[in-house]
């Protein structure tokens, strides 16, 4: 029976079953692990192999040059590279979290390779000390490395994303440590890496950190440790003692959890945790698995093996095969243990009977009816843990068979599992060679898996998976496009553009600018320009256009976008890059850019703006600038009134005037500037003669008023004639000026000088505003328009006179308005009512 054969491959360790299915026969040829240094990445990652230069090996028909070779987990070659690096022996080699191969050589140089055996620039140096003292050993973790020099100094790189070597505290030991292990920063209290050193002849473990060394395990250990390894979660330390015992302690060495005698006192070559509850020890041809209790399990190997720890087991790599040693999951145990009568086992059995059309199927089902949901769940779960596709299928069939009889089982559970298994099976294909277990997959997360696939240039599979899982495909397509550009040096731009666009359009909102930037980095500026043209986001497009030197297009696109900020970006860029005249020419052709330049320059680059206007022949604008500048003299505290600084000010204005005069369209401005200069001269003179600094920078009208107020009528007259002030304005100015100083006699005299050109209204208004009713009454009767008379009377409160005048004007609307003015006065109000009734004007509302 099938059930029996499954469990027959299991080994019992204490009370747990372990199994060791073969994942792949290795496809590689002529690889002898014994002759090589090997690094295998966790999560079903690739394997790196290079001839071990610390061993003396015989060369069989191969080049004397060493070659770094990369394989996937199935031994399928990925890439290779000849190793020609100086710097001495290769000390250590390991894959970090983002699948970069990190190689440390003797002089402390770190070479990094990507999945395609391409050297990742730049190389990292562990620093001067390492270079001088030579690296003796090193230990890696997910994203960092610790090196120990031949003089027993420690240096670490805490994170390869920011590769800066950090010295650790001096452990003060003379002999090289027997063994070394690290606790990852994420599991330490300090957040920094802790290095554990097993030292010779001293029954302690030294813990070295950046700021100190601690001695742990004093009293607990009976002798020096030969080998150690920290568990995945950093909590436990498994070590091999000087006297041949396996010791499992807490990682701070405060308590012993397990202590077992091993059959050898020679230290094992490799030691590794298998999940969290067993430790593997490997000697020459024997692999020993120790559990917390019970007899250890022995596996015999007649060829060398490499242990690659995973979160839920250990992969065992040999010359010929890749195996996965793991604890048998509980659901699997419940189904396949020999003689199991668990509901899940019965359900699995029922399917078998059903397939053979045996009535026993129904019997089984009825037997487990109450616990059917758990049985289904166990079958689903067990299917997830299987590597064998047909067994996955059988288990899922059993689950769906049982599900048909259970009402309260989560329907999408099976579907979900199918989805996961499809993805897992796809990546487990030997071509791809990523033998993830379901647990590893969940820990790794689909997005990281996709990231790994695209790094391995498995774009199609990555695209399909992300599509299948409903994830954003942008990452995949973007990476594909960039890789495609890198790889297609010989394809002409136009052809490659079509190829790229064909795929890029699959993903809405993808950044064409990013792809274009990559093309540019690869020296394909023309392709970049073509690509960036497809970018809909101006904010991405414009900066890129600038970086590939397409300034004119950038300016055009920025202008089109309406985003002023982008226009300024281009503007400043061009400004910096080009000669002034060329710059001026460029922006002169683009009104928006030109206007923005002017706006900015007005604030901060006055002189430069003048150059611009001169170069483009906008003389009137230069003139305006000069005129504006002339005021700067006023603001300048040195330019106190009456000082000779007036000269330069007037000169500037005159210069402006002559510039205005250059063009026909600015006759008015030219005239105004001329008058301004003239005014300033006169005002300056007036200040000198009157010894009062009150003239400069007042208007012509104000100057006249001031003169009259000061009683200097001759000067007022002079200003009037100099500037051809009209009689109309003159009358208003003089009347108001006289009213200001309440010179009523002079006012009356002025009114009689001749018939005022604009009548007597100015006189009336000036008097009313000065609240001089008696004076006002002198002039009101002289007003020609009866309506004006009525209103003026009303304003000084003479109701009767107002009404009379209004009735003369025969204006109903006026009457209404006057009534409103006298709203508070009942008597006055009635006067207007009667008047209006008498007139009975239509439309008088």
């Amino acid at each position, binding site marked *: 029976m099938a059930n029996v054969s499954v469990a027959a491959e299991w080994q019992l360790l204490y009370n747990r079953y372990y199994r060791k299915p073969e994942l792949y026969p290795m496809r590689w040829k002529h690889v002898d692990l014994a002759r090589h240094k090997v690094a295998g990445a966790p999560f079903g990652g690739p394997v790196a192999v290079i001839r071990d230069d610390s061993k003396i090996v015989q060369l069989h028909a191969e080049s004397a040059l060493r070659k770094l070779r990369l394989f996937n987990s199935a031994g399928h070659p990925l890439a290779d590279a000849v190793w020609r690096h100086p710097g001495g022996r290769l000390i250590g080699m390991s894959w970090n979290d983002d699948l970069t191969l990190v190689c440390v050589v003797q002089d402390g140089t770190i070479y990094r390779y990507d999945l395609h055996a391409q050297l990742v620039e730049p190389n990292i140096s562990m620093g001067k000390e390492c270079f001088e003292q030579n690296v003796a050993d090193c230990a890696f973790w997910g994203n960092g490395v610790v090196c120990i020099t031949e003089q027993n100094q420690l240096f670490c790189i805490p994170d390869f994303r920011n590769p800066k070597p950090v010295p650790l505290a001096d452990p003060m030991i003379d002999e090289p440590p027997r063994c070394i292990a690290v606790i990852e920063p994420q599991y330490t209290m300090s957040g920094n890496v802790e290095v554990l050193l097993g030292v010779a002849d001293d029954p302690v473990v030294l813990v070295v950190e950046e700021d100190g060394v601690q001695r742990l395990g004093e009293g607990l250990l009976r002798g020096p440790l030969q080998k150690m390894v920290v568990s995945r979660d950093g909590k436990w330390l498994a070590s091999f003692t000087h006297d041949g015992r396996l010791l499992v302690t807490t990682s701070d060495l405060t308590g012993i959890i397990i202590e077992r005698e091993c059959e050898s006192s020679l230290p094992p070559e490799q030691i590794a945790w298998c999940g969290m509850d067993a430790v593997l020890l490997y000697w020459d041809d024997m692999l020993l698995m120790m559990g917390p209790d019970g007899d250890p399990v022995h596996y015999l190997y007649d060829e060398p093996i490499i242990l690659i720890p995973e979160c839920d087991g250990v992969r065992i790599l040999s010359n010929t095969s890749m195996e996965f040693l793991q604890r048998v999951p509980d659901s699997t145990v419940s189904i396949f243990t020999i003689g199991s009568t668990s509901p899940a086992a019965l359900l699995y059995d029922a399917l078998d009977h059903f397939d053979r059309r045996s009535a026993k199927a129904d019997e089984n089902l009825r037997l487990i009816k109450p616990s059917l949901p758990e049985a289904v769940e166990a079958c689903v779960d067990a299917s997830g843990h299987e590597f064998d596709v047909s067994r996955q299928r059988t288990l899922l069939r059993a689950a769906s068979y049982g599900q048909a009889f259970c009402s309260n089982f989560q329907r999408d559970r099976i579907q979900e599992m199918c989805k996961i298994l499809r993805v897992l099976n796809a990546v487990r294909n030997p071509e791809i060679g990523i033998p993830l277990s379901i647990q590893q997959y969940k820990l790794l997360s689909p997005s990281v898996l996709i990231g790994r696939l695209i790094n391995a240039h498995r774009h199609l599979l990555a695209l399909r998976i992300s599509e299948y899982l409903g994830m954003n495909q942008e990452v995949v397509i973007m990476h594909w496009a960039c890789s495609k550009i890198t790889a297609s040096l010989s394809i002409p731009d136009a052809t490659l553009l079509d190829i790229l666009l064909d795929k890029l359009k699959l993903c809405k909102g993808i950044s064409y600018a990013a792809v274009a930037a990559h093309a540019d980095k690869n020296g394909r500026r023309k392709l970049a320009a073509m690509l960036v043209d497809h970018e809909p986001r101006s904010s991405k497009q414009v900066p890129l256009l600038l970086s590939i030197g397409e300034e004119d297009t950038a300016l055009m696109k920025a202008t089109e976008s309406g985003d002023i900020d982008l226009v300024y970006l281009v503007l400043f860029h061009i400004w910096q890059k080009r000669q002034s005249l060329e710059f001026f020419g460029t922006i002169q052709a683009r009104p928006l850019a*030109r206007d923005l330049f002017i706006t900015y320059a007005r604030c901060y680059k006055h002189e430069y703006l003048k150059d611009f206007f001169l170069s483009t022949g906008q003389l009137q604008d230069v003139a305006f600038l000069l005129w504006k500048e002339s005021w700067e003299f006023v603001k300048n505290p040195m330019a106190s009134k009456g000082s000779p600084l007036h000269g330069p000010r007037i000169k500037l204005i005159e210069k402006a005037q002559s510039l205005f005069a250059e063009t026909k369209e600015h006759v008015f401005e030219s005239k105004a500037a001329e*008058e301004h200069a003239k005014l300033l001269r006169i005002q300056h003179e007036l200040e000198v003669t009157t010894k009062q600094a009150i003239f400069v920078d007042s208007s012509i009208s104000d100057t006249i008023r001031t003169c009259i107020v000061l009683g200097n009528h001759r000067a007022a007259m002079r200003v009037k004639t100099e500037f051809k002030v009209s009689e109309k304005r003159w009358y*208003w100015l003089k009347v108001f000026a006289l009213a200001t100083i309440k010179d009523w006699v002079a006012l009356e005299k002025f009114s009689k000088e001749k018939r005022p050109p604009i009548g007597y209204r100015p006189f009336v208004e000036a008097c009313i505003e000065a609240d001089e009713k008696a004076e006002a009454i002198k002039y009101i009767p002289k007003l020609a328009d009866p309506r004006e008379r009525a209103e003026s009377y009303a304003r000084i409160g003479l109701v009767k006179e107002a009404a009379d005048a209004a009735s003369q004007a025969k204006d109903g609307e006026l009457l209404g308005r006057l009534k409103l003015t006298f709203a508070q006065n009942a008597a006055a109000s009635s006067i207007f009512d009667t008047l209006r009734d008498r007139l009975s004007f239509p439309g008088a509302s």
Partner: protein
Amino acid sequence: MVELLLQFRGKIATAKLLILREQSQKELINILKNIRGKKCLVIDPKLGDSLSLIIQTSLLKEHGVELRHLSADHIQTDCTKVVYLVQSQPNLMRHICSNIHHDESKGLQREYHVYFVPRRTVVCEKVLEEEKLHNMVTIGEYPLYIVPMDEDVLSFELDLAYKECQVDGDTSSLWHIAKAIHKLEFSFGVIPNLRAKGKASVRVADILNRMQAEEPVNSSDMVMPEINTLILLDREVDMVTPLCSQLTYEGLLDEFLNIKNGSVELDASIMGLQQEGKKTKVPLNSTDKLFKEIRDLNFEVVVQILRQKATSMKQDYTEMTTTSQSVSELKDFVKKLNSLPEITRHINLAQHLTTFTSKPSFLGQLDMEHTIVESQSYDICFDYIEELIHKQEPLTTVLRLLILFSVTNSGLPKKHFDYLRRELLHSYGFEHITTLNNLEKAGLFKKQESRSNWLTIKRALQLVVEDTDTANPNDISYVFSGYAPFSIRLIQHAIRSGWRPVEEILKLLPGPHLETKRGAFSNSPSFDSLSGVSTGIAKVPDGRRALVLVVFVGGVTFAEISALRFLCSQEGMAYDLIIATTKIVNGQTLVETFMEKLGG
């Protein structure tokens, strides 16, 4: 009508607009939280005004903030952390630079943060870079694009937008407006119908469509968007309306007392308070029920309503003291008493306003505005303006009429143009040549080059309405006692039947016009026209009326807002309106943006 107005106002999807306010508030607080400890917040004064609508000063203080206004003077504070919150205008950078340089010279070690509103810009950073300060400051953004002014009014707070576009050719405001609308679309859905008139508006529409293409608002679920139509209108199209004196209550308050961020400041004595010489702030927004009722009415009517209310109150009071009342009647009376403070407040304000409105100069000005709008007696208008200049009346008053005059005549004959310019320079000083230059560039005061279309437009759109009943209006012309605001007339058409029927008129106006469908609706023929009859489209699923967003590019006046609210309250109106503007303006503030002294 009052009831109708109330009815409309309650229903608007204002909840979401209020969320905007909360969001902005939260964003600001987050910025402050992220800078630990005590800090000195330096705000540019103009931004400070708008921020007061977003967050209370007390709330800022709770977050360890010492508040200062940005100026050229250095900051005096004990805080070691200084946070500048400024609009991204290059000229403000100057102050920041001088502040920091001052600290440096005094050897003060401070941590500087500059937060740009609404976003960082290359120009501003360039200034910091040239001053070699960019390494000393941490730069951030506070994306405040919209400030809700009231439950149906949004402002982008771009005071200078109109002038910058027309005079300087700086169209940053248009991007800002598009961005703001796009942001609104993220919470209201893509607005399916768009109508725009004027160069700037069409450009905004264009940028908005670009933004939608670059960063689409997800409208795949085909849910009916809450805002049905977006109407964009350039201020340039109608420069007549904002220059006329507003005659609604709120409009007049703004004309004379200058409403700033929903409140006016005036002498305490006017409000009947006993604090001599002190200023007091009177809030004016829709939380004041009485104000909500009367703000949009013609001032004449407001005076009557207030009188009625006062009288009835007095009557109730006498009844109360003479006859015995039932408990429920007492209750009603007390309820009425509660509104007493509001009534008093508005009676005080109205009284204060009448001191302005009864002035002959104001009446004369109204008269002249009317004459100019009627556009019949050129000479009278010309003489009047000339006289104003000769009398050296305040320049803004003069320019307001002058622009109105020039705009309705599409410029003045060269002789008059040059003459008035000369008289202006002579009377007010040569430094105003820049102002004149600005106005000419903006086409507001210019040489006549073609015949004016104003008469045709006025007649075709019935802008001057005889016999306007301000108390029971049946047309928007009530807001100006006889002149129907041109801008609102256009919008009235745009809402009712789109541009097509008024196409001939639109062609007479500056700038292109545009009418399109957007988003998922651009290809669907079933949403063909936005018509008042087919109310089926206009309903949002939960039975509320759909919204129309009216955006004024270049500013809007309170009177125009009132006219829109009036339209909304009319029977047969299928939509609620939200009004957005670059800034709430009036004739004076609008003219002031163009005023620039050469030496200033």
